């Protein structure tokens, strides 16, 4: 496989000393590794660097960053623990992994919070310098786990990370605190040794990252190399692992998170539509990064407006849309709740708009940094009166790119607000993403009305039912629109009973009609059989992962993953009939399942997990077994 790989960086695997010393090197299929420590320990950077390196090497992978709601809780405490998990493999990877093979725990609090996920006999690297009395107390531990045999079931490597890092950096001229900040790179170096990975990409990254702070470049490089050499020299590990590249479909790849992919998707949509992109947003976790990303793309003519609140954010987007922009607004649950009145206005005036709700744990402020899928019903019904809108959901970080394009296409073609439901897990998780060429992107035709002849603001396109997009500044098209009920065609204010019924039904029909413009669904796995799993959003990974072993066990299982939640794919009802049972795993109390039951009168069963965490593959498997027993 290696020969097939062209790496832009042109780095080469360095021959390691372990080869020379003849220590054991085992080729395995996959590994899951989790870095955890205090928020101040740089675990997110460490994890990202490791991810980047394995991605460049050609492994398939999935990541799961998990950080506390506090910016920086007190050092060493349980709420301050931050983690980053990578699952990388020579096969396809669908989840960040249920349990971990290697756990790096920088302090007792991190160990306490994460140990339960380490596999029996898994590798456990801890910074033994940080297990002093005071450290233990901060983590609310009385006896050191390094001493009470509680870690006997694991391959424990208690390494004096602090001391060793300081020793490595003694000549750099940094103070103790700054030196200690490099100990995550010592740990990273160890992991590179353990998985026979080149340090090259990280070295390059350090050069770039700290280009104005050469001392830090040197220090971190030294720390990483020291970690690497430590494994080499001390024979700490008697074995190292090799995970060959994966057989991904050919193409150019990059690693991408869901939020970055959404941002990129909207830039692409605006380019394809040849109209300016406008984002009106108010920061909120975990959606803020879309605002941050898009605010960097001024060279694409993107206008990003940080509004005074969510209501102003969506309102400004409606104003921009009225004026001919591809207008979007991004938020999470609490902000979504505030936008609903204005979304209703967009429904009434029939303007395109894309609303992204990056779901998080709730209700209310809830669990701001944790994931959940519990805003589906809010997206579908959380507006006064009958105000139907299309709802789409990406199923992986990379899919966010495509969903952004598709939502934009639908919004513009049908003159309708569209809601995208992503979640914290997709938003921050990353996966290798095959980069499309521009030619592969869908066209998004835009027609601004310009002809005053016979122009009427609610004269509909007979096939889409869309009204014309007649933007201010167009001579002869002066007209008035508003949120009061209006006569169809003319748009004049109208309170007549039958007109109202007509308008309510027309707005609904327009959205229903989109079912003809989206693909029919084809189940993964068995096309009919004992069980159909219907799901949406970020549960895609664990369900896909569970499908293979379960089908290999002889179960006849299909999997339908809905990217369109409203309208539903037009053949969904037929598909549902082909299976004996239907299971709907969701990170909520059963929202999609309610829709399916109501619409198709099928006895679909809900499997809800509401823990701020994605499903594990094993949980899905267990549920399948339970149902098919």
């Amino acid at each position, binding site marked *: 496989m290696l020969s097939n790989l062209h790496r832009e960086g042109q780095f080469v695997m360095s021959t390691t000393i372990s080869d020379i010393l003849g220590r054991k090197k085992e080729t395995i299929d996959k590994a899951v590794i989790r870095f955890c420590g205090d928020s101040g320990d740089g675990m997110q950077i460490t994890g990202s660097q490791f991810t*980047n390196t394995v991605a460049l090497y050609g492994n398939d992978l999935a990541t799961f960053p998990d950080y506390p709601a506090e910016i920086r809780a007190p050092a060493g405490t349980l709420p301050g623990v931050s983690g980053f998990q990578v699952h990388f493999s020579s096969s396809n990877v669908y989840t960040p992994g249920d349990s971990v093979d290697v756990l790096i725990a920088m302090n007792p609090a991190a160990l306490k919070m994460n140990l339960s996920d380490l596999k029996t006999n898994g590798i456990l690297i801890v910074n033994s310098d940080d297990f002093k009395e005071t450290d233990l107390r901060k983590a609310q531990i009385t006896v050191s786990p390094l001493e009470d045999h509680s870690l006997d079931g694991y391959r424990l490597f208690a390494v004096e990370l602090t001391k060793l890092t300081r020793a490595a950096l003694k000549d750099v001229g940094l103070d103790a605190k700054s030196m200690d900040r490099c100990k995550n790179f010592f740990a990273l170096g160890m992991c590179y040794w353990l998985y026979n990975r080149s340090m090259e990409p990280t070295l390059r990254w350090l050069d770039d990252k700290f280009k104005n702070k050469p001392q830090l470049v040197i220090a971190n490089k030294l720390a990483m190399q020291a970690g690497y050499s430590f494994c080499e020299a001390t024979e700490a590990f008697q074995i190292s692992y090799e995970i060959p590249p994966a057989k991904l479909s050919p193409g150019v*790849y*990059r690693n991408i998170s869901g939020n970055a992919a959404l941002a990129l998707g909207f830039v692409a949509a605006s380019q394809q539509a040849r109209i300016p992109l406008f984002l009106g947003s108010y920061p909120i976790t975990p959606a803020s990064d879309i605002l941050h990303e898009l605010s960097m793309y001024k*060279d*694409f*003519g993107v206008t990003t407006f940080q509004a005074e609140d969510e209501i102003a954010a969506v309102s400004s987007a409606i*104003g921009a849309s009225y004026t001919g922009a591809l*207008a979007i607004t991004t938020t999470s649950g609490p902000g979504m709740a505030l936008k609903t009145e204005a979304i209703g206005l967009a429904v009434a005036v029939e303007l395109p708009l894309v609303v992204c709700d990056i779901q998080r744990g709730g209700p209310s402020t809830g669990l701001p940094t944790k994931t959940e899928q519990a805003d589906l019903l809010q997206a579908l019904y959380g507006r006064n009166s009958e105000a139907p809108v299309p709802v789409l959901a990406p199923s992986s970080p990379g899919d966010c790119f495509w969903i952004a394009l598709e939502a934009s296409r639908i919004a513009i073609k049908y003159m309708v607000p569209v809601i995208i439901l992503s979640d914290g897990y997709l938003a921050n998780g990353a996966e290798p993403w095959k980069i499309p060429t521009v030619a592969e992107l869908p066209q998004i035709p835009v027609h601004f009305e310009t002809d005053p002849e016979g122009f009427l603001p609610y004269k509909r396109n007979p096939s889409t039912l869309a009204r014309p997009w007649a933007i201010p*500044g167009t001579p002869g098209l002066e007209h008035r629109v508003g949120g009061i009920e209006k006569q169809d065609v003319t748009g004049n204010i109208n309170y007549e009973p039958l007109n109202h019924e007509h308008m309510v039904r027309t707005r609904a029909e327009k959205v229903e009609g989109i079912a003809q413009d989206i693909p029919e669904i084809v189940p993964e796995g068995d096309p009919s059989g004992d069980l159909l799993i219907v799901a949406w959003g970020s549960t895609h990974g664990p369900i896909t992962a569970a499908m293979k072993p379960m089908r290999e066990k002889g179960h006849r299982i299909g999997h339908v993953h809905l990217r369109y939640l409203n309208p539903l794919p037009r053949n969904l009802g037929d598909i549902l009939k082909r299976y004996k049972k239907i299971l709907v795993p969701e990170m909520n109390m059963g929202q999609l399942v309610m829709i399916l039951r109501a619409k198709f009168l099928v006895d679909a069963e809900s499997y809800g997990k509401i823990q701020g965490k994605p499903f594990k593959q094993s949980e899905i498997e267990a549920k399948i077994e339970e149902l098919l027993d």
Partner: protein
Amino acid sequence: MTTATLPVYTKKDFQTDQEIRWCPGCGDYAILAAVQAVFAELGVPREKFVFISGIGCSSRFPYYMNTFGFHTIHGRAPAIATGVKLIRPDLDVWVATGDGDSLSIGGNHTIHMLRRNVGLKVLMFNNKIYGLTKGQYSPTSEVGKKAKSTPFGSVDRPFSPLSLALGSEATFIARSVDVFQQHLKETLRKAAAHQGSAYIEILQNCNIFNDGAWETITEKEARSEQVVQLEHGKPLIFGKNRDKGIRLVGLDLEVVALGNGITEKDLLVHDEHDPNPVYAFALSRMDSMPGFPTPIGVLRALQGVPRFEDLMQQQIRDVIAKKGKGDLAKLLRAGDTWELKA
């Protein structure tokens, strides 16, 4: 935009065929007439005018203006209009709003619009009442107001809309009156000419739910005694016989009778361009000070503050000038990438 091709408009060109649904006698009619007349003079192509409103009697305004019009939701007009301006700074965007729409539910958007100096002209119809919902007191109603929701009288102090605007860094504030047609038109012209947010409080009579709210100002007798008309560069004089004036004592204003040694020279001279908002703030307090006349006209027209929408577009142009126009293919492949051959 070549003025050569600009059609010559009359007031009629700005009228629509929609039935006007205000109560007979409502002050809104006069405001509509003034706006239609002034729009015809401004030398702006009709399609470049956009009227955006919230909800309220006053917010029905766009339906009666033959321009682009958007009747939105309660209180959000400034935010929606900001979106319009950010995409098309060349449009001439006006906001019609009421004391409830702008200062109650819409307070936050109003103050932020002013802070940002978004190039919007805001006509705030102040009738000191919620008209459309049939007569509840508003944030500009006087203390003790007996209205539908306050049968025993309201207890909260009102905003001075223009003080609030100044506290929000407004660059242009003005006050006029529905029935003072010439003055109103002149004020509208000045607002139209201002670069940036223009906040115009229009004292408007709701003859159904708050009739006579501005009587002390609009009654023939009262006009000259209770009103001081601000004119740039002129001293603050008022009174039927133009025999009274306003002067400064420390930071306080004082009403003085001219004569007996007091001359025009002792009076404050109106400077709408004063960069220090303290002067305009002092003026904005006058109407709530017993014994003082209500100032009408332009209290402040600070020049040279760039508009939000221009700065935002300039930033885009600057980045493009520096980096070149974005290339989508490049953007997609940005950062670390790797290729997998077939």
